[in-house]
């Protein structure tokens, strides 16, 4: 089932060093490789004023040593995005202008870190992003408002209310999720097959 992409679908770039006095780099899983790539073009003193927040997910120890070797001023390894968020929010609430944010990895990580940044008053256009690894989606059920994490199928079942959802490309930065809309509302007896779409 092909869904033509639309303008609200986020477009990710390639991380590049920005002018600033405080660099906060946040990555999960393969996103670590984006930070390592950025390091190749970064000024010599870049990581002396940088903090790396890393959530390995299923990459285990693969990237830890390489990230630490960049000698960031601070390095934090978290067990999950949810566990790292309170720390991030506290960090942003005390930060000054000149802080630059770099997000790399899954759309879920990029979206949730950006959500915290927006609340802290950072304009989304000033945030560097790079998608790496899984294309699994966070999906908000438009009906019950529950968010289902790591959705890989089209359609997908809402983990809260159980409705079968068409996962649209329509994306909300504020909610950090794609929109899911009941796929068989016109005829609930019709149950379309689920296909792996977002790997």
């Amino acid at each position, binding site marked *: 089932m092909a869904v033509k992409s639309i303008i609200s679908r986020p477009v990710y770039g390639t991380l590049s060093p920005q*002018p600033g006095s405080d660099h906060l780099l946040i990555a999960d899983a393969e996103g670590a490789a984006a930070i390592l790539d950025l390091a190749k073009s970064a000024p010599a003193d870049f990581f002396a004023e940088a903090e790396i927040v890393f959530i390995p997910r299923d990459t285990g120890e693969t990237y830890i040593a390489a990230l630490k070797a960049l000698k960031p001023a601070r390095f934090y390894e978290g067990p999950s995005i949810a566990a790292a968020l309170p720390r991030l929010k506290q960090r942003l609430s005390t930060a*000054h202008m000149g802080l630059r944010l770099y997000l790399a990895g899954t759309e879920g990580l990029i979206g949730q870190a950006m959500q915290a940044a927006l609340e802290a008053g950072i304009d989304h256009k000033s945030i560097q992003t790079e998608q790496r690894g899984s294309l699994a989606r966070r999906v908000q059920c438009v009906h019950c408002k529950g968010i289902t994490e790591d959705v890989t199928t089209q359609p997908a079942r809402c983990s809260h209310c159980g409705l079968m959802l068409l996962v649209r490309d329509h994306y909300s930065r504020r909610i950090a999720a794609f929109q899911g809309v009941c796929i068989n509302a016109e005829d609930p007896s019709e149950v379309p097959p689920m296909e792996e779409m977002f790997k």
Partner: protein
Amino acid sequence: MSTGTTKLDVAVADVVPVNELVTRFHFRPTNGGLLPTFSGGAHVVVEMRDGDTTRLNPYSLMSSPLDTSEYTISVRRDDAGRGGSLFMHRAVKPGDRMVISYPVNLFSLDLRAKKHLMIAGGIGITPFMAQTAQLAATSGNFELHYACRTASLFTYGDVLAERYGRRIHLYHDDRGEKIELTRLLSSQPLGTHLYVCGPAPMIDWVRRTAAEAGWPPETVHFEHFSAPQPGVPFDVELAVSGKTIHVGEQQSLLEAIEAAGVDPPYLCRGGVCGQCETNVVSCDGKFLHNDHWLTEEEHRSGKKIMPCVSRFEGRSLVLER
């Protein structure tokens, strides 16, 4: 459908000299009642009927947006300019009837800001007079840094200091006082927005320093209306209306087009809003671009001109008007 603004009929209620260069004008509606509400940073375009010449100059509203019983503007006398400010200073008297535009805001506060950091130079203080009044009324978080040549020319410096105390920082050039911009920019909380209004070199300095300090462009706001500059007279052919016009030494191209009975839309008349952007059909000569609207590439292309502030020197110019 073209855009533009509605006109307001006003009477000059008061003319108050503020210092040797600046005079303040108070306008009230001729039919009584209240003037339209506006937001801090808005300007009006004032129509000046000076004999056969009509000038239309934009001025920031500096009165409090909370009080629309009158509008006030402050005009700095420019002895080398085209005469608009001299007309205001010499000819406009209390009781005169004038026509002004509805307020238009091209220098709006970003109300998402956790803090508003304002930097003013000279007469660039006027939009901040209205913005600080608006923010103060809603418990907004702001801080103003204001530089001027001398104490005697410190337009409203005393008024602001009295109103807002420690939120106002004044810098006298003749005393060697200077805004410590780098330190200032590095100490602002995340979510601060920066606003600058003043002479062009100051705006450039602030924008450049902010960019180097890692302030994203979305957080840096500036207002720089250019005044049309006098220059060598030139002739222009208007292809659409089939007219040939002469642009005088003290006239802007837009004014000359209007004098011929053609009315391009406008909001700012200062090279900022983009409304009067005009296509060039053909030309043989050189453009003197003074606007902040077209990109450098568009300036080089010779295919567009902003007639409110830009001029032309050469043999022939044909515009799509």
